[in-house]
């Protein structure tokens, strides 16, 4: 699904990713944890194709294709979805209209006819229930006046609607109370399938109580420094990131 090899990238000439490697197979859920400034959000922005970020070395293959040469919209059309850490407001554009435009753009890319209005509404109804999003929110302007929790739920709703193959969740748990966290996690769990992979970026192990990952990676200073099974998250929670940093310091001293 996704193969990242020796990725170096940064912003305004500051290198942030320094040789990042990751292999995500279809149906897998990978959690990426790490302290502030370790490059987690840079990773999601680079994968989504935000133009301020510059890739200086390495390669990223998505479903066998070179991801880095694709425009951001083509990456999305190929099935890459980023749930934003800070979802953007678009005043005056209804969520529904926004999603319909997006779905039809993706369908056009796949040389499919625009979605039938009836099918679309059916889809909306079905996916809304998934994240317990009120009908009124779907009709309101994109993220405008939404609470933090509503915005995050809306991201998962959009994810459900667009049916991507690779979902990147960028600190989707930040700013969520425990109920919202459970709703969001339930939504994600229902979307798990053998053809869909997830990269879950988070600070805390809390989210991983609900979304059980297949692999946990610890990121530090622009690369993955430790990988393991889901238990690694618990260990991190107990010992803190300093534990990883110390081990690294010792490692480099040898």
């Amino acid at each position: 699904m996704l193969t990242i090899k020796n990725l170096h990238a940064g912003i305004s000439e500051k290198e942030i990713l320094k040789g990042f490697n990751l292999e995500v197979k279809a149906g897998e859920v990978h959690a990426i944890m790490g302290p502030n400034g370790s490059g987690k959000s840079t990773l999601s922005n680079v994968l989504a194709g935000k133009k301020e970020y510059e890739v200086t070395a390495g390669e990223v293959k998505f479903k066998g294709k070179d991801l880095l040469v694709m425009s951001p919209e083509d990456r999305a059309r190929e099935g890459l979805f980023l749930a934003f850490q800070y979802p953007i407001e678009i005043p005056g554009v209804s969520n529904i209209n926004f999603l319909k435009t997006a779905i039809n753009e993706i369908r056009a890319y796949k040389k499919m006819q625009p979605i039938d209005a009836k099918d679309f509404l059916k889809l909306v109804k079905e996916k809304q229930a998934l994240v317990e999003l009120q009908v009124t929110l779907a009709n309101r302007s994109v993220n405008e006046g939404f609470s933090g929790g509503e915005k995050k739920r809306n991201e998962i709703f959009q994810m459900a609607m667009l049916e991507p193959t690779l979902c990147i969740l960028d600190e989707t748990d930040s700013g969520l109370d425990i109920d919202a966290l459970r709703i969001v996690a339930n939504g994600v769990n229902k979307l798990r399938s053998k053809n869909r992979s997830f990269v879950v970026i988070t600070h805390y192990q809390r989210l991983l109580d609900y979304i059980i990952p297949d692999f946990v990676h610890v990121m530090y200073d622009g690369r993955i420094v430790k990988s393991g099974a889901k238990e690694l998250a618990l260990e991190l929670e107990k010992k803190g990131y300093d534990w990883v940093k110390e081990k690294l310091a010792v490692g480099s001293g040898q």
Partner: protein
Amino acid sequence: MADKNEILEEHISSEYKYGWSSDIKMDSAPKGLSEDIVRFISKKKNEPAWMLEWRLKAYRHWLTMKEPHDWAHLEYPKINYQDIIFYAAPKQKKELASLDEVDPELLKTFEKLGISLEEQKRLSGVQSTIAVDAVIDSVSVKTTFKETLSEKGIIFCSFSEAVQEHSELIKKYMGSVVPYTDNYFAALNSAVFTDGSFCYIPKGVRCPMELSTYFRINTAGTGQFERTLIIADEGAYVSYLEGCTAPQRDENQLHAAVVEIVAHKNGEVKYSTVQNWYPGDKEGKGGIYNFVTKRGICLEANSKISWTQVETGSAITWKYPSVILKGDNSIGEFYSVAVTNNHQQADTGTKMIHIGKNTRSTIVSKGISAGVSNNSYRGLVRVSKGATNARNHSQCDSLLIGSTCGAHTFPYIEIKDKSAIVEHEATTSKIGEDQIFYCNQRGIETEKAVSLIVNGYCKEVLNQLPMEFAVEAQKLLAVSLEGSVG
């Protein structure tokens, strides 16, 4: 990236799709302006003496006036009025018995513009019916549905015909809202106006279909000077639409129109415009100078006049559709979207003059600037002494695309009555890279994202437009802004 640029180029070059011109046999006046030209126009139109008198008075007054260059936020060279053709009309037989007699080239022109002059087509179509008055250069070539409308006592015809057939109404109302002394371009128009639409809705009649006038400038070197007069008698209602296009030419062409609206007791007029005159090319060459005076008067109690405009065209737009709220409890509304791209300049807004008691006005203005354009909102809210309980709410928003364009707001508020409540809100925002990236990440390409964001921003105004027009306006907004985000 190369092919992306190519696509962009393609978009830019396809920007103005009405830029072609038609080869229609024309009957024109010699270039220039003089009393003789005024007489020539009047004679061409076989006008009664009173009409010529009025024109000449206007012309003599115009000679005493100066072209306005001081107050509007616009820059344009002095216009050479001796270099303009003031009258150009397609050659055709006087009386047309049927559409078959219209020059086929002319029919083709309107067909190409997507405007049907055939009533049957419209009737059987899925779209709601719209009666059309088609004006090309200086004359109205065809007005549809005249018979259907006249059954209800509605008069909808070209202005020239009204001068002949309904002279009492013309004498009574022409110049009553916009006198020829009003301003430089209104005076010019009063002297040399060539055609336009006239519409009268009698007492208690709700006009059963949208009325519309379609203006097209075709001949090179001509100016278009049309007048429109709309009267809603007691309890009458009409929704009126206006559209316009012009061929792509290197020289600037002048369009100086006058629109007058009168609403009697309980009468209501809704006037919608989608202005799409040729805006000039990317370098600012050519384009229409659009100097227009539009004003309505709510003459008696409980009347209402509503202006909705979507301004995407013209090199220069100078236009302030206004409402004089004379009748008690009368309502004036102004909803505007003005888009400027490349080198376009717009100075547009409204005037709401509160005179009667309990009068209300609403102003919603959305300016969008891109390229190196300048977009100004200029609005006056005046509450006269004795206009008790007047209410006004103004909202003026500006949206910037890129960092080389300008947005300006010039609100004037004059309050002479203490009971008035006047509110003014203004915002300026920029289409964010973040918004565009968010759309991109959902599979929406940048051009489409901009159009989506802009349409969302204008929603309040677009919602005021009749359905068919709203769809057209949305497309137009997208086209006008193509290539504005690199």
